[in-house]
């Protein structure tokens, strides 16, 4: 059993849990995820590791309430125990010295990308971070991003509050300045639609764009094939070959979106999830 040692509400429907799981903490790397099960009747559900403490043996993740499991997680308190907590799964995000890296984040990606940005800084990169949130109330986790990033751009779905315009406008500006003010790499952990749009924007400029894909998963160890997607013409399993992929090589976006939404019909509570580009809606 894996005890919960801390639970913080970051914004409406957004929570951070800290779980005692020394075996996972010991090997965790930026961009990897865990699969947890709450109790005997629970589902196996993946979450990206947002922080860890090897000495204390704890692992953090941030989640958004969207359906049954995440709603149930939201009720758990320190002292409660999870039946299962498996990880760190997937490959770590690629990190090297690239130069100027732009990260684009929304939803849980705002927290889950922090370890990647930290590693990017340790490798001497300049980092511009763009954060998208529906509005100011639902914005969270800005402080560590401010500290770590050389430049932080807030993009809110609604105008006002002294915030900037939409994410794509912010990115367009950065790309327009390229290559004079070069963008050497883009890393995105945000909605599937935005990652797809981003990949198309950077493709003509040849700027490597890494996307963090989250198809529906079951085992998370390469056994079920639920998470398969086509990358560069071959089938890849997001849980073992990803979840980070080169966005220019992903060639099954529409299928990926449809598969992601298999179980969405009754369950989506998350506003703004119902993107127009997705074939299911």
């Amino acid at each position: 059993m894996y005890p919960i040692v801390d639970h913080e509400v970051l914004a409406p429907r957004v929570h951070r849990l800290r779980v005692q799981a020394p075996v996972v903490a010991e090997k965790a790397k930026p961009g990897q995820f865990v699969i947890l099960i709450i109790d005997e009747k629970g589902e196996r559900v993946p979450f990206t590791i947002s922080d860890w403490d090897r000495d204390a043996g704890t692992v953090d993740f941030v989640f958004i309430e969207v359906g049954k499991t995440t709603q149930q997680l939201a009720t758990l308190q320190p002292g409660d125990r999870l039946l299962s907590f498996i990880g760190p799964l997937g490959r770590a995000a690629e990190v090297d010295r690239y130069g100027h890296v732009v990260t684009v984040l929304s939803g849980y990606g705002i927290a889950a990308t922090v370890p990647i940005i930290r590693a990017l800084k340790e490798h001497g990169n300049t980092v511009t971070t763009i954060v998208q949130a529906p509005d100011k109330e639902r914005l969270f986790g800005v402080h560590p991003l401010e500290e770590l990033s050389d430049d932080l751009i807030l993009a809110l779905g609604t105008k006002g509050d002294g915030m900037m315009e939409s994410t794509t406008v912010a990115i367009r500006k950065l790309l327009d300045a390229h290559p004079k003010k070069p963008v050497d790499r883009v890393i995105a952990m945000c909605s599937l639609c935005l990652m797809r749009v981003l990949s198309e924007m950077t493709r003509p400029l040849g700027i490597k764009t890494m996307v963090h894909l989250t198809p529906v998963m079951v085992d998370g160890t390469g056994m079920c094939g639920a998470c398969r997607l086509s990358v560069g013409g071959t089938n890849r399993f997001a849980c073992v070959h990803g979840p980070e992929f080169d966005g220019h090589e992903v060639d099954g976006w529409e299928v990926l979106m449809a598969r992601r939404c298999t179980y969405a019909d009754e369950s989506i509570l998350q506003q703004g999830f119902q993107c127009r580009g997705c074939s299911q809606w």
Partner: protein
Amino acid sequence: LNLNRVEMPKQSEHERRHNFDEVALGYTWELAKEEASRCIQCKKRNCQQGCPVNIDIPDFIAALQREEIEEASRILKRKTSLPGVCGRVCPQELQCEQACTLNKKGAPIAIGRLERFIADWERTQGAPTMPEMAPSTGKKVAVVGSGPSGLTVASDLAILGHQVVLFEALHVAGGVLMYGIPEFRLPKEIVQREVQYVQALGVDLRLNTVIGINYSLDELLNTDYDAVYLAPGAGLPKFMRVPGENLNMVYSANEFLTRTNLMKAYLYPEYATPIKMGKRVAVIGGGNVAMDAARCAVRLGAQEVYVIYRRTRAEMPARLEEIENAEEEGIQFHFLCNPTGFLSDGRNNVAAMELIRMQLTEPDESGRRRPVPIPGSEYIMDVDTVVVSLGTSPNPLIPSTTPDLEVTRWGTVVIDERGRTSKARVWAGGDIVSGGATVISAMGEGRIAAAAMHEYLTNGQKKIIPPTPAKDED
């Protein structure tokens, strides 16, 4: 000489289409006695030679004839730690029962059913009989994977006095017995009882731990462990690589069966894992896995279930009993056809598949008739759910994180005749070595490797006599 075997009661077709309860109900003591009485106690033990783990079949049947069920159980347990499982899922018709002397004249003794009867009887008798444990050797062994092969090695080595840690990636032990084979063929309670038995022998079961991720094989060898047994199975699903195979509602059998069996999606929403299924389900393949998937689909409420197989019924690798069960349950078999692609409903859900008709060639040197497509014979079939059940390949995780572990080009781990791999202090067995075989062969390979490991751990002491189970005093 009675040449007719005693039939085993089973749930009616009509009833069982709507539940996940076990189909075959098992012998009563009366029926078991009657069937046992048919055995003529041959001097030449043909049946025993047909069993991959060499169970003393005539002896346990003789015990039944003497009405000594407990003794029969003890004889069984000498060679198998999973009688309740093997009695249910062994392909007996190709093994012990095929070799039975009576098979030449009439119906062979229903050895599997008798084994199952004994195991089930034992389960009603309270705590299982515990074997005599050897004193501690002070040696520590890691077993990777808790399927039948890993469970066998863990229990054998624990009985021989070694300290055993059994690592399992999933949240439940049992391997395919838990995630693959459905409840209606093998109740999960039986598997869990075997797991508890292995734990009662002192084996330290560590669930949720993936070797290759949490610890590499080298880490195990360089830290606590004197030897390692690898039994991670063959869990990597195969796909056909035809257009449209990633469309929504095209499942691998592994996903379909894992959701249904391991995660109990048939009890959704009491259990949180859902499984989405349409009305017209096509299962591609002709093995046990395909039969299991098709029969799950029936029980999950599909209106039509088709099995698509590129050869004919005669070549199907599934057990005959399961093919017959499937037919009785209304599953429709389409032979001599093969999918060439899947078509979308416009929203990336599968709506139909394109098939091509096949014909069998004349037998080649190996005596096999190969299926070849008939040009221009393509046709379309409407389906809204597809389960690809073409088998699996060895799990690549451990070989890919252990460069000096020799594997074949099919990804199976190379071993010698006693289970030893190319890497010092590492043995392997089960589906990771065979690429996919049977429960009993996975167990048998474990047996052999466990004996070799014991010899190594005790500097050459041979395990001569298998430990005899003694009655648990409490």
